């Protein structure tokens, strides 16, 4: 380690390395169009929601720790598990990935920003407002209560007349718009803003996996949009999409939801796969094993992801042909996923391993995701699935892939990229404590759920009777949750302490190989003073010319006193700060969120919705008719 980590140069204690030169203050963050700042905003917001969703889970586990408890009512319990799922999927893991998309994709492909910086700001603000909109109701006890997949018809007016589901339907519509806008933005960025020589097959694996994810987003979200529009129309205007008495099919929602929902699973996991594919080669000091196969298997996972949705529905009785087809496609998807696991192991094989915290979390992902993947294969088979469906076995499965997979990968990413994002290193000792306690807590929480599930404990029950063989396992899960909370507290302390006092990181504290490590930490607002010319997959390890990119940068474009020149000094046009995307996002969220008033007061509904719509349209026109960059 010591040889690669830049010697810490101790900065004045108060100042963290700041972003974008002279622009500071709250207003500069609100109006920012810098992808790095937006990435940081995403990171903080989604970490907040991650903790919030974790606390919801903590209440759930406290309630279930022992039989026949009454810490929360059945109704509040419904709201808690619904919001735990919704928060973790839409407000924590997806935006945590988005934080890395924002921060890393332009840096990894050698670009100065994303293709549409203002659209990027819009995506963030829509996410923030939508997140607040969908989260607040729980404090009034009227949070969504239909489960994160909100099966209709149980979510229709007939069975769920309160405002609860309205918040969910409208909140998800808002969040969907955020994801779609970001999706178009990043697809364009990756296609069009690669540095010279950055061929598709030279792109870092994180960028590749993110690229695949953007396609999943733009193809999956329209389907949930439509399903939600149907539900919204049913609830607001009395249409019949999910009205069984009118002849509606109760499976319509399930099919539409899972056509979205299964690609969504890959939307959650592929960015984490990408992150560990950056970490593992770095700390194995070896190129990623089977780069091309990794790319193809990522694409194949994305593509097959659209053909497996009905495996969530084996228990509804689709008939032997449909069951067989979806069972086969589901088992097929295990192949590219398994290929990735073996490639990671082969990357480490024979490498000079350095067990940094990021590396530990990456290895943790490989191991934990494999367990979750294997239990996934067990319910690819309809007969076994019929035994497991709607039990805690399924809960165990998807927590192993989402917590053991996505969250571990994201933690790996945070420890790995913290120095790049904030210019300081995180504390490795605390990091190790975080990792090991987290690892123990996670397995203690979700491991026993396999058993309680196989013993027949159903999901989503707010309490249970004693002596059904589940008591011990539930207690273990609850203790495990407490341990996870402890590890997360260590992480939070480490995060903020390192933010203030961590040793300064150089450009490339880990000796990593990709372009983002060739520029200062944190990067200047323009990222690259000179667009790099890429000649290999590992430009910083590529020493064929006798010197690497980072040195080139250092010698050519920086002053001796290590001051990074501003964009103005270099004559690089940067997008201006603007308030318009924020206004557009606010208008959009008021317009959609205001629809909840329909059931309260029609005039208020009309006024708020049209006011929001007007704000949106005016801001959009102002935005689209004003230039991105200053004229010069």
């Amino acid at each position: 380690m010591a040889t690669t980590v830049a010697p810490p140069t101790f900065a004045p204690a108060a100042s963290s390395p700041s972003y974008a030169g002279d622009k500071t203050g709250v207003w500069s963050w609100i109006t920012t169009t810098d992808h790095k700042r937006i990435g940081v905003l995403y990171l903080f917001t989604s970490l907040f929601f991650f903790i919030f969703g974790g606390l919801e889970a903590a209440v759930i586990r406290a309630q279930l720790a022992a039989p026949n408890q009454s810490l929360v009512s059945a109704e509040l319990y419904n709201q808690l598990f619904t919001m735990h799922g919704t928060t973790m999927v839409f407000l924590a893991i997806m935006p945590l990935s988005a934080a890395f998309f924002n921060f890393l994709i332009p840096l990894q492909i050698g670009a100065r920003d994303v293709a549409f910086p203002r659209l990027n700001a819009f995506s963030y603000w829509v996410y923030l407002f939508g997140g607040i909109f969908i989260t607040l109701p729980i404090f009034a006890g009227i949070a969504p209560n239909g489960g994160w997949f909100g099966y209709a018809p149980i979510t229709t007016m007939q069975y769920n007349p309160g405002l609860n589901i309205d918040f969910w339907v409208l909140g998800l519509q808002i969040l969907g718009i955020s994801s779609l806008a970001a999706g178009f933005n990043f697809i364009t960025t990756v296609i069009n803003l690669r540095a010279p020589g950055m061929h598709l097959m030279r792109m870092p694996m994180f960028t590749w996996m993110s690229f695949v994810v953007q396609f999943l987003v733009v193809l999956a979200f329209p389907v949930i949009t439509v399903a939600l529009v149907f539900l919204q129309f049913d609830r607001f205007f009395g249409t019949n999409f999910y009205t069984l008495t009118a002849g509606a099919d109760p499976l319509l929602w399930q099919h539409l939801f899972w056509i979205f929902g299964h690609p969504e699973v890959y939307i959650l996991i592929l960015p984490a796969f990408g992150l560990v594919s950056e970490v593992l080669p770095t700390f194995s000091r070896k190129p990623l094993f089977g780069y091309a196969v990794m790319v193809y298997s990522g694409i194949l996972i994305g593509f097959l992801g659209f053909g497996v949705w009905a495996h969530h529905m084996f228990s509804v009785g689709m008939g032997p042909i449909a069951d067989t087809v979806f069972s086969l496609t589901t088992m097929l998807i295990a192949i590219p996923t398994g290929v990735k696991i073996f490639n990671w192991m082969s990357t480490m094989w024979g490498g000079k391993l350095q067990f940094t915290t990021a590396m530990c979390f990456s290895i943790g992902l490989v191991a934990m995701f494999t367990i979750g993947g294997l239990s996934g294969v067990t319910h690819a088979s309809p007969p076994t699935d019929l035994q497991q469906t709607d039990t805690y076995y399924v809960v165990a499965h998807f927590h192993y892939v989402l917590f053991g997979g996505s969250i571990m990968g994201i933690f790996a990413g945070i420890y790995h990229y913290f120095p790049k994002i904030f210019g300081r290193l995180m504390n490795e000792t605390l990091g190790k404590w975080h990792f090991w306690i987290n690892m123990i807590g996670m397995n203690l929480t979700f491991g026993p759920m396999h058993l309680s599930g196989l013993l027949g404990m159903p999901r989503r029950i707010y309490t249970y009777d004693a002596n059904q063989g589940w008591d011990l396992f539930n207690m273990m899960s609850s203790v495990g949750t407490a341990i996870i909370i402890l590890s997360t507290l260590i992480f939070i302390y480490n995060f903020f302490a390192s933010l203030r006092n961590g040793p300064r990181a150089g450009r490339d504290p880990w000796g990593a190989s990709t372009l983002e490590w060739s520029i200062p930490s944190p990067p200047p607002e323009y990222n690259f003073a000179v667009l790099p010319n890429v000649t290999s997959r590992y430009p910083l390890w590529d020493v064929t010319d006798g010197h690497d990119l980072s040195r080139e940068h250092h010698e050519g474009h920086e002053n001796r006193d290590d001051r990074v020149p501003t964009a103005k000094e270099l004559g690089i046009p940067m997008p201006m700060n603007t308030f318009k995307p924020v206004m557009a996002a606010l208008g959009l969220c008021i317009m959609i969120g205001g629809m909840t008033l329909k059931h309260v007061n029609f005039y208020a509904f009309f006024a708020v919705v049209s006011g929001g719509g007007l704000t949106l349209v005016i801001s959009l026109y102002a935005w689209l008719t004003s230039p991105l960059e200053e004229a010069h």
Partner: protein
Amino acid sequence: MAHDTAAHDDAHAHHPTAKTYLWTALFLTIVTIVEISAYYIKPWEQSAIYVPSMIFMSAVKFAVVCAVYMHLKYDNKLFRNLFVGPLVIAIVTCVGLLFLFGKVAIRISSGQ
């Protein structure tokens, strides 16, 4: 922008002229007229080929508009991929749904 515009001019050099657009419109109109007439011609409308023929004709119209009016035939291949990829996934999903809901079925005749 300099090389952007150049790329554009280059692309436009291959773009069709107003005449091509007019002929295309005429072709689309004729196909539409055939479609609507088929609806009123009872023997055709009630025959087994009615639905396939209608889907075929609309698919042809769809493809012609995409190829000529949306310039997919002349433009960079990237755009074609960006459109056709999602379109294929969309159509396969639609067909899959219709199978699942029993709207279409493959009948294997038990050869007697």
